[in-house]
């Protein structure tokens, strides 16, 4: 357990509204990630961060933005939610270990865009 929480855990919103999901960690790890998971697609990386104010795009970044103003918080924003963004969103952190690294995932946020 890497002390990762996500909020909200469930959200229903309407098309066109902005939505922000929050990922919070308690262990001050440098790397944080946002993934989405959809049936038939496994997990796909949206954005990641390698430090405060340092972020980069993943493979499915269109329609999403992120911010990291503090080490412990990584925010994912859908500027104008669309039905195609209905998904389960997972946040993850990376722990550097002696021979590589491990990613630890949060509990997920189920987002429904109607």
């Amino acid at each position, binding site marked *: 357990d890497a002390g990762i929480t996500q909020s909200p855990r469930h959200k229903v919103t309407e098309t066109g509204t902005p939505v922000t999901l929050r990922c919070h960690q308690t262990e001050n790890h440098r790397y944080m990630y946002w993934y989405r998971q959809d049936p038939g697609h496994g997990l796909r990386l949206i954005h990641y961060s390698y430090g405060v104010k340092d972020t980069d795009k993943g493979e499915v970044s269109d329609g999403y933005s992120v911010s990291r103003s503090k080490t412990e918080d990584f925010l994912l924003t859908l500027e104008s939610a669309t039905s195609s963004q209905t998904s389960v969103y*997972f946040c993850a952190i990376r722990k550097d270990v002696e*021979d590589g690294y*491990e990613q630890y995932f949060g509990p997920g946020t189920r987002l429904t865009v109607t």
Partner: protein
Amino acid sequence: LAKTTQPISMDSYEGQEVNITCSHNNIATNDYITWYQQFPSQGPRFIIQGYKTKVTNEVASLFIPADRKSSTLSLPRVSLSDTAVYYCLVGEMNSGYSTLTFGKGTMLLVSP
């Protein structure tokens, strides 16, 4: 990033050993091989990671041949609670900007 190929699904019975093989033909020199497990409605959970030969922990073993173009996750004496999706990932460990790409995984169903 190296692409991985693994079976979509596998079936087993309680008490059996399960081996899930992953193909990663274009693995790079700095790439490590990592396996994750995911239960429904939960985030993936790290199982094991290796670079070459064999790695064993309290949960599983990972076998990697000399050419590193494939790897096999071995789960000894599975139980019903091992029913999950298993992901094989290949990625560079040394880059500060490295990320891992999850494929579709292997759905393991363990029956009584």
